[in-house]
């Protein structure tokens, strides 16, 4: 079973890896974007970590909805509302249980990812965060490590794609050959689950 502490560790681990990888994320956002993805998420997850520290929410659902609200209020850009919605909707789906099973979490995360697809209108193959998130959710039944591998593979697989959503779509064919920054940060987010589980 996964408790509030687990989800707090997930967010802290993600905040740390985003910090570590911020420059790389921004660099990926340069050739096909506007060079801000790393600093956007850094600002957001720093705020998430601070809010979790301060408000100390007691259930898995409360941890994630608070994190999502923080992202919406501090990130801006496309990724703010999208990641914010992902966590908020996942948190809402978890309800107010004190602990949730891995299965319940997998279902909730799928609800979150679906909400991102509805909000942003992206489908798999559009060269967005969805390309890492959907495979990760699909693999979650096989454990966090499998989900991490699927997310990383999904992120790498965005390179040959032509973008159909987000800024990169403005480039048309010139978007081909670059890895999507959002898919890359989604892989970091999923990797945070492995860390949180201490696997």
């Amino acid at each position, binding site marked *: 079973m996964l408790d509030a502490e687990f989800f707090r560790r997930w967010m802290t681990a993600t905040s740390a890896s985003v910090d570590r990888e911020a420059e790389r994320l921004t660099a990926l956002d340069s050739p*096909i974007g*506007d*060079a801000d993805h790393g600093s*956007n998420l850094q600002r957001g997850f720093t705020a998430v970590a601070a809010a979790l520290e301060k408000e100390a929410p007691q259930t898995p659902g409360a941890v994630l909805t608070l994190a999502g609200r923080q992202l919406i209020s501090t990130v801006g850009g496309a990724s*703010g509302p999208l990641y914010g919605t992902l966590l908020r909707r996942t948190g809402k789906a978890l309800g107010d249980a004190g602990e949730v099973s891995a299965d319940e979490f997998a279902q909730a995360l799928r609800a979150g990812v679906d909400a991102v697809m509805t909000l942003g209108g992206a489908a798999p193959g559009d060269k967005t965060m969805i390309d890492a998130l959907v495979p990760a959710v699909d693999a979650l039944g096989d454990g966090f490590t499998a989900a991490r591998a699927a997310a990383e593979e999904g992120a790498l697989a965005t390179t040959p794609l032509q973008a159909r959503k987000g800024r990169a*779509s*403005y480039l048309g064919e*010139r978007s081909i050959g670059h890895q999507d920054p959002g898919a890359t940060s989604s892989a970091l987010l999923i990797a945070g689950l492995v860390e949180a589980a201490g696997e």
Partner: protein
Amino acid sequence: MKMLINVAETVVADALRGMAAAHPELVVDVDNRVIVRRDAPVEGKVGLVSGGGSGHEPLHGGFVGPGMLSAACPGEVFTSPVPDQMLRAAAAVDSGAGVLFIVKNYTGDVLNFDMAAELAEDEGIQVAKVLVNDDVAVTDSLYTAGRRGTGATLFVEKIAGAAADEGQPLERVEAVGRQVNENSRSFGVALSACTTPAKGSPTFDLPPGELELGIGIHGEPGRERRAMMTSGEIAEFAVGAILDDMTPRNPVLVLVNGMGATPLLELYGFNAEVQRVLAQRGVSVAHTLVGNYVTSLDMAGASVTLCQVDQEMLRLWNAPVKTPGLRWGV
């Protein structure tokens, strides 16, 4: 790249402090990142709120004032602001007559303004929205996020601002804003990339002797890279791309806009070529604006925006405006 800054993290806050000092006629809330005209809310008048990433100055903060925006929400550099800012701005400018959000068509701006609109309506503020998407360099199809909002934003904010200033109701102000957008088209070129404070190096490499055609205003590369062209050739390409997409029957407003680092001397020279091409193509010009209005940090280059105007739009364009970035008649 060297910048005249303290540290990257405080660039937007520092600029807002500097704006506050230079423009006592504006209320600049540095902490909450909202710029509001001092006399807001103006009784009986629709409030106009816009915003977007910073780095496009004078857009949007420099267009706050009588006859144009009621408030602006500056995000981080090239990053859409967050819904909290827009909600705060809406609350500050709503006199009961409602608020018009003017949103450039970028995924981030659209999503954040949409969230803010929901929150504002929850608080009993009537909100309408005009989406600006004038950039013909982007194919508007299922396979893109749609056309970007660029230079036409200035025309939408000025003309809708004049309508609001006259006390026109929200639906009318919204309709006027939409009409301006529908009659506007832009095309931009870059001679250099720009450097964001966060990244500290140019957003893309552009070798000497090459230029980017069809760029936006966020340092992203354009649709195409070519061998360097003369100002006359660039004018033909840019105006040509616009006229391929729109055939003005009425006179046009022309914006020859610098991306930030191109000297005014060059912009005026470029304008001469733009006017030559327009005359050759039989397009009549009502008014021309040359300068740095919708910029992309320190990018070198320029964009052309044409806005086809009828008598009423032209009347609203000519109405008095008093903002840091655009001022006449008052």
